[in-house]
């Protein structure tokens, strides 16, 4: 099996062995395939891109062609242990409603998203007067699918208002040196944010 993308590797570390998992926007299925092989995880991937669906089928995964903007109504409440959404939150029409849906179908959610408060993006906008771009956010403004970008602070505030309890946070950078800085000031130096969360009791 080929190397897993670094952020997916970190997500994989948060998955309980043998868990029943739903992966929203599962792409070519590499995370699910890895989890299935390494952690005996079962579950489904949801994807909208026809080519990626073929890749998932080739990998022997359960994949369902689904538009996440239409919600998760095909799934019963509490039918999964964990629900994962990597790098997709910022591209859905209503991230808040989807977070709610995630915690309806699963006990625990995991999301990753690009941090819009990363210092380089701040620099692009405030000093250069440009729409920010970075390695984690490479689209140009007119072609980007990312319609709801947010920062760590924004996400945490939303979770607070939605009565969602954050269990774990991890920030990533595209190299390890910056990663140490990112642990120190995550909202400034973290390029990609990762959260594990549950419904607050």
């Amino acid at each position, binding site marked *: 099996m080929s190397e897993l993308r670094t952020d997916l590797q970190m997500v994989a570390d948060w998955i309980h062995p043998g868990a029943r998992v739903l992966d929203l926007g599962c792409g070519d299925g590499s995370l699910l395939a890895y989890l299935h092989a390494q952690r005996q995880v079962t579950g*489904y991937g949801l994807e909208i891109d026809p080519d990626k*669906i073929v890749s998932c*089928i080739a990998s022997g*995964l*359960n*994949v*369902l062609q689904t538009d996440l903007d239409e919600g998760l109504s*095909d799934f019963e409440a509490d039918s999964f242990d964990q629900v994962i959404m990597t790098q997709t939150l910022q591209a859905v029409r209503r991230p808040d409603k989807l977070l709610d849906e995630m915690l309806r179908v699963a006990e625990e959610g995991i999301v990753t998203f690009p941090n819009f408060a990363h210092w380089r993006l701040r620099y692009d906008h405030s000093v250069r007067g440009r729409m920010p771009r970075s390695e984690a956010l490479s689209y140009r403004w007119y072609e980007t699918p990312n319609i709801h970008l947010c920062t760590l602070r924004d996400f945490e505030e939303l979770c607070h208002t939605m009565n969602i309890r954050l269990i774990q946070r991890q920030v990533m950078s595209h190299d390890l040196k910056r990663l140490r800085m990112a642990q120190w000031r995550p909202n400034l130096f973290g390029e990609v944010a990762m959260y594990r969360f549950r419904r607050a009791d």
Partner: protein
Amino acid sequence: MPESIPADSVGLVAPKCEHFDEPIELECGRQLASYDLVYEAYGELNADATNAVLVCHALSGTHHAAGYHDMTERKPGWWDNCIGPGKPIDTNRFFVVCCNNLGGCHGSTGPMSPNPETGEPYGPAFPMVTVRDWVVSQARLADRLGIQRWAAVVGGSLGGMQAMQWSTDYPDRLAHAVVIAGAPRLSAQNIAFNEVARQAIRSDPEFHGGNYLAANTVPRRGLMLARMLGHITYLSEEAMRAKFGRDLREGKDEYDFHYEVEFEVESYLRYQGKSFVNRFDANTYLLMTKALDYFDPAAPYGHDLAKALEPAQVPFLILSFTSDWRFAPSRSREIVRALLECKKDVCYAEIEADHGHDAFLMPIPQYLAVLGTYMQRVANEVGA
């Protein structure tokens, strides 16, 4: 007519026939004391008989799913786009079987066959057959062919319903179920269209209560109308617009103000209707539409489809087509949802296509890619 057989065709094929003397108890309460099943097979059955795929046909389908009967045949079998060497259902790996269903009119015992009690054709005396009955008869054919377990049971439309029925009635006799452009049961609208088709046939003066063969005639007009109506439901509005628009025949651009064929679409429908009459029996058409109407596996389970599918042990591939309004994607999603509820393995793809319900017969690249990839996975699993 093919000038030469294409390299990716199964080539020249010939139907075979199996005769069964063991009576079959039908769901309607009647029985057939003996019957024939005509089928075709493509590819080689491997030594362990693990690579067999059953293809189930739809309303007007036959056992002739792929290849050519002879060099004068105008078109290959009905699913030639999907069955053949290197095609999605790859005959280099699979042994593919397709039988004409009981009640059919292409060789298997049906209304045109002689009733052993009278020596005359059954006609309207042929018992009603259901999807469940077909699956029972197909299982007996599998026994006869030495196939204990199908690598996959695959079908589109009414064929998909048979694949679903297989998964619950013989859960250990298949490894995968592929349901294409299917539905868990007909809607009121679907039944309504079937009823109009049946009335068209039954109200034809040549119908003679179904005994038209004895009267040495056929209800051509009624069967033609039934097919014309059916055909409209197989196409999407986009497909009809693209194919005919409002074009007039023979390049005319002015109306003639009469009731003969003027628009291309009228000409096409009449052609479809007329050619259908030459290859299909009216009583079979009535039976097949009733089999569709009666299919409702969830009904005995308080209309809980998940409960009905609970006995299934196999992974499913469910496919739908965006412009299919006969069995729309939402109908396939009902099946998916039920499978999710009972935690079955399932893949679902909604293929972008403007051909309507007929899309399942078309060589649409994304469709072939999804089906082919899934079938490769099946082949790898069963050691085909």
